[in-house]
């Protein structure tokens, strides 16, 4: 398995792949991933220019550990196969498939990726895939999509197109997205992959954005797509365990390891009843804290 499949992806920042000023140094804002867009942000007659710019960015710019995901054009377009070749030739970390509606979509992209990896002498399996779900059909087939490929590290909700398909619109309350979010996170967890939430486009409403991120964090999402570096700090703050959480998780892991050796199954930590069922959750907190760079302990 590609070791990056389960890496930390709290924030995924969209950038127009055609804009050198945007893509030259987004790493200074420290997002976990950037999403270099060849699809909606790029005008039809600029697709080739965008690919050219993307290829050189992937080849020449040291993104200092920030994951480089590329959103290719839809499978219903004439552009996507050439997009895949450029992504793989440039050496991107992952490809995002827009408007995914079935496992066949993922398979089709995977096939092109394999061909390109051979053509450009890239290690087999080095290019990961994620699937954006943007329709009612896609949501209803989420589990099948999640289980369609070993390369697939996650699925992401695209709220704009999805709400149009549902014949509603983005309200800012999240009501219109409830079903899709719930269905997708359950499917992703069932398949053991990650799940990412849609963008929040009102940059003047940072409080609304915060509430939105808090909600999807509680639902279990791994991260959020963002459109502006101003949104990064809030996402990271909410998705990064607090020192209180980390200390408690550390105690839980250590106590369970210790008590297990003594044959004790149930005990209390800071007045809370703890048993083996807490172990995985506590380990996840520690791992997330480590990946976020806030854990300095020895676990």
């Amino acid at each position: 398995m590609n070791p990056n499949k389960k890496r930390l992806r709290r924030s995924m920042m969209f950038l127009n792949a055609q804009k050198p000023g945007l893509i030259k140094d987004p790493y200074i804002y420290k997002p976990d991933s950037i999403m270099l867009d060849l699809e909606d942000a790029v005008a039809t007659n600029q697709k080739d220019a965008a690919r050219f710019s993307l290829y050189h960015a992937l080849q020449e710019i040291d993104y200092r550990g920030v994951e480089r995901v590329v959103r290719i054009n839809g499978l219903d377009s004439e552009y996507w196969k050439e997009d895949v070749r450029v992504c793989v030739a440039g050496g991107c970390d992952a490809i995002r498939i827009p408007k995914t509606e079935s496992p066949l979509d993922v398979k089709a992209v995977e096939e092109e990726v394999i061909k390109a990896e051979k053509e450009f002498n890239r290690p087999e399996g080095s290019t990961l895939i994620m699937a954006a779900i943007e329709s009612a059909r896609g949501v209803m087939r989420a589990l099948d999509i999640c289980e369609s490929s070993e390369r697939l590290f996650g699925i992401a909700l695209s709220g704009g197109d999805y709400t149009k398909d549902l014949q509603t619109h983005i309200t800012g309350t999240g009501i219109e997205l409830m079903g899709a979010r719930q269905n997708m996170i359950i499917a992703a967890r069932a398949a053991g992959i990650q799940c990412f939430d849609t963008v929040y486009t009102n940059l003047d409403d940072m409080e609304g954005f915060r509430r939105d991120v808090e909600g999807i964090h509680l639902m279990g999402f791994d991260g959020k797509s963002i459109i502006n570096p101003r949104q990064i700090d809030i996402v990271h703050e909410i998705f990064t365990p607090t020192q209180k959480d980390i200390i408690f998780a550390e105690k839980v892991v250590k106590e369970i390891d210790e008590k297990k050796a003594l044959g004790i199954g149930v005990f209390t930590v800071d007045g809370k009843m703890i048993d083996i069922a807490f172990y995985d959750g506590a380990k996840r907190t520690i791992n997330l804290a480590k990946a976020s760079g806030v854990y300095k302990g020895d676990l």
Partner: protein
Amino acid sequence: MINAVGRDIPQEILDITGKEVFQGVHYRDGYTYKKDGPNTKCVINSNGSKLVKDIREALVKCEIKDGMTLGFHHHFREGDYIVNMVMEEVHNMGIKDITICASSLGKAHDKIVPYIEDGTITNIQSSGVRGKIGEAISTGKLKGLAIMRSHGGRVRAIESGETRIDIAFIGTPTCDDYGNCRGIGGKSDCGVLSYAMVDGDYADKVVAITDCLVPFPNFPAHISMTKVDYVVEVDAIGDPAKIATGAAKPTTDMRKLMMADYCTQFVVNSPYFKDGFSYQTGVGGASIASTISLAKIMKERNIRMKFGVGGLTKPMCDLLINDQVDCLLDTQDFDLAAVESVKNLKHFRISAGEYADPFNKGAVVNKLDFVILAALEVDVHFNCNVVVGSDGMITGAQGGHPDTAAGAKCTIVIAPLLQGRTPAICTDVTTVTTPGESIDVVITDYGIAINPARQDLIEAMKDVDLPFKTIEELRDIAYSITGEPERVQFADRVVGIIESRDGTVMDVVRQIKPFEFADEK
């Protein structure tokens, strides 16, 4: 001759100007001299007013002739009409060989370029120039030399008699018929007349030009009738929309906000951030954002500012409104909030001389703890360039940059690592305007460099969680992104000098020439 910032100043320039090369910021500390004084035509007869019909009549009465030096101020910023109005009349009268001595010139004065080309104007002395005048100088159209000097340096040059102003034209928002000028009121309100005060004191002839004539006495006068020879009323002295704009909306540009945050964190972790500190900042997005976040921390930690200096904008004036600063010392107002704030009793007008003149008995800048500045380029010696673009064209102004940098205990320069596709942090700046010995800290979006000469600041920051790097590391990151740029190619002719605030020569600016690739030579 090589000066203290390593720049080779041609002997010919030293001979023409009678100047010495720059020898360090404190080279002339303790220098003793006798101040110059104006020729004064007394008004004893009590009949009549000083009002004249128009600018032309004022010029005739002032006995304008070829070769004179005319003084102007820049309080109307990019909304100024005065320079163009006066120079048009001078041109129409067929006068030649004029030296303009302005506190600054900008794009508002593009219209005088034909007068440079036809020899009406042959010398320019200014804090800097932007727009087409800059292009005219850089392409060799000015027959004489452009002298770029700081706000403090201009006062020094005039007070010491190095520059003698024959006629000063003082645009004034309100004036009475006897010449009492005030920077407030009227439709062209600019708040203060700080830069013009030295013109009032030292010019042989002083002409006040206003678009709001008020009954005598227009008191308290910012420039007194005792210094004014003639008063002219015109329809408009400037475009109010460009003189003082509404307060700039705080920036939402994350890059600027990040640099602002680094700056604030540096300030509050430095040893100078304590009750009673003093502070000056500029009008850039990062500077304004930094002032806003600094105000929050001052409140949290119950720390008051003793005085703020400026070039003022709303965030600085808000400190006064919110009782976080004892007083403001004002040389210029950049927005309507600052103009309005002048009415506050703790908001004091000061002259450019009080602000920054190195040749008086101590200026306000000497009492600054912090100054936050910007720069077009900073090099690995911490030298700054704020006047000449990386393309070799004159495109900026020194303003108070070298004055405040020299005076403040902690001088912080904020500059994005890349200005477009050009590295702002480089091996050698195109032109030195502020010497590295005055610069303590450089803050970029990629990290912060402290001048190694400030080991005390390096020590104070050793446990502070900020992205510290050496200036060479910052330069290397910039070059790793853009490549190392080839040096701009200049012709031999010197078109301007960058004067140090003490009157010595910091650098020269040469005529630009089209770039020649190596294989074309």
